[in-house]
């Protein structure tokens, strides 16, 4: 058999999780249209792309963490550190070429989410790696020495022990994605969605893109621009503060 039963189960679980995320995102979008008239659609679009991008970036980030949890830092970490300095604007340009033009997804929330996932991939992989290396690695090493398979040690010992640190990495990744403009203006479009929620394959400006667009058009003093700035600041700061690393917090600031 090419695929093991476990791999099939994992694929099914992944597909179900993605389906649940898509359904959940659409429900949340509908609710936000009603709750925050004027900017509700943009707020919903912002949250939708953030949730979807986190869903897309989690498997590879955790995969790298699992594979390299017991390795000494090497070329993979050096490469991730180098590409994590890639400006978001450059990621946005590539995402436009890959997802909007070549994959034919057009300006859509899905293109935006994939672009954000691409932007966060090195950051999330490095963060997850640091998280699992910090917490309880010695206990995991002990279990490995007793002959427990690596995958099981990671799942049963390392992952539960580092859940808090991993959650903080996810929150910091969400903060970066929520306020991101350069990637989304090239992938999700700059026009707000119409009054009713559209599917994820439709384009919609997020709060950050709309704020940039309004300011660039000389409408930065309007109520909509101020509402966008307020939501962006409140949610962005809340996510960044909630995602502060507990130990050596300053290392991650401003990335």
């Amino acid at each position: 058999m090419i695929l093991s039963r476990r791999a099939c189960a994992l694929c099914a679980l992944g597909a179900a999780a993605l389906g649940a995320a898509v359904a959940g995102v659409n429900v949340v979008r509908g609710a936000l249209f009603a709750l925050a008239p004027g900017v509700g659609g943009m707020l919903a679009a912002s949250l939708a792309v953030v949730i979807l991008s986190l869903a897309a970036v989690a498997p590879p980030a955790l995969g790298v963490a699992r594979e390299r949890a017991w390795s000494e830092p090497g070329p993979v970490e050096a490469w991730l550190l180098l590409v994590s300095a890639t400006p978001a604007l450059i990621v946005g340009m590539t995402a436009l070429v890959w997802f909007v033009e070549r994959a034919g997804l057009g300006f859509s929330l899905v293109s935006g989410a994939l672009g954000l996932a691409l932007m966060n991939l090195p950051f999330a992989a490095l963060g997850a790696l640091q998280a699992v290396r910090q917490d309880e690695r010695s206990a995991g090493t002990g279990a490995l020495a007793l002959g427990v398979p690596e995958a099981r040690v990671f799942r049963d010992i390392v992952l539960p022990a580092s859940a808090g640190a991993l959650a903080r990495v996810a929150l910091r990744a969400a903060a970066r994605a929520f306020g991101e403009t350069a990637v989304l203006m090239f992938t999700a479009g700059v026009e707000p969605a119409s009054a009713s929620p559209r599917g994820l394959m439709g384009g919609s400006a997020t709060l950050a893109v709309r704020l940039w667009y309004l300011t660039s058009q000389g409408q930065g003093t309007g109520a909509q621009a101020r509402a966008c700035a307020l939501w962006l600041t409140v949610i962005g700061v809340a996510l960044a503060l909630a995602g502060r690393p507990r130990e050596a917090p300053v290392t991650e600031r401003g990335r």
Partner: protein
Amino acid sequence: MRPWSALVVLVTGALVATLVHEALPALVPRALPELWGMAFSPPDRFGALGPLTGSVAVAALALALAGPVGVGAGIYLGSLAQGTWARLLSGAIDTLTGVPAVVVGFLATSFLLPVLRVVAPAGGGYGLLPAAVALGVMVVPTVEGFAADAMRAVPADLVAGSLALGATLEASVLGVGVAHARRGLSQAVLLGTGRALGEGMAVEMLVGNAPHPPALLAPSQTLTSVLVQQFGLAQPRSLWAHALAVLGILVLALAAGVSALGARRA
């Protein structure tokens, strides 16, 4: 290399390769008119030197403003601060980290530009100066974070030895601690520079985006402001799009190069 690691390295490598591939047609000799000119103004002028100078100037200005503040805050938080003041300053910098770049640009447009318009009415207040101020605000947390880490890495024995010789705590930290951490402090400034060079949105909102030579208080161009404004407008596979990809490579080389240099000094 194992599958997930290989996948992540491959995807991130393909990102760089795509940019280079997009730029290739413009990199053949004489493909771009006036490549080393001062103005990037398609379809007839593709000068990269003006935006490049603008980018370097705005990053240097931002670091001139943010460097002392960030390094000073890092030294204070990394070695001197205790109690309420430390928590307050640390909390303020963490809060600043969460404010998106576009909001910083919006605030500068709302509050800084009207003031600068009084000083330089002809340019509408736009130019490298307001962009550098906004960029400086955004770079402070990066510089402070790495500077504080560098100060925390100073062996306690060194400062204790200085204290034992009768020096005050401040003199010991500044004279012995800072001297020991100077590589780390310069790394903090370099990493801040890398971030400043790659930032696009706030700069685009404040720099004025006119194809003129860079000026403090007159509309100018930077590499990132040109990319933000024009990449979505250029026809795919046109000379314009290829020329913009060349500018993208310059941004990537500058930002990643300076950051890599900073990381190597650690």
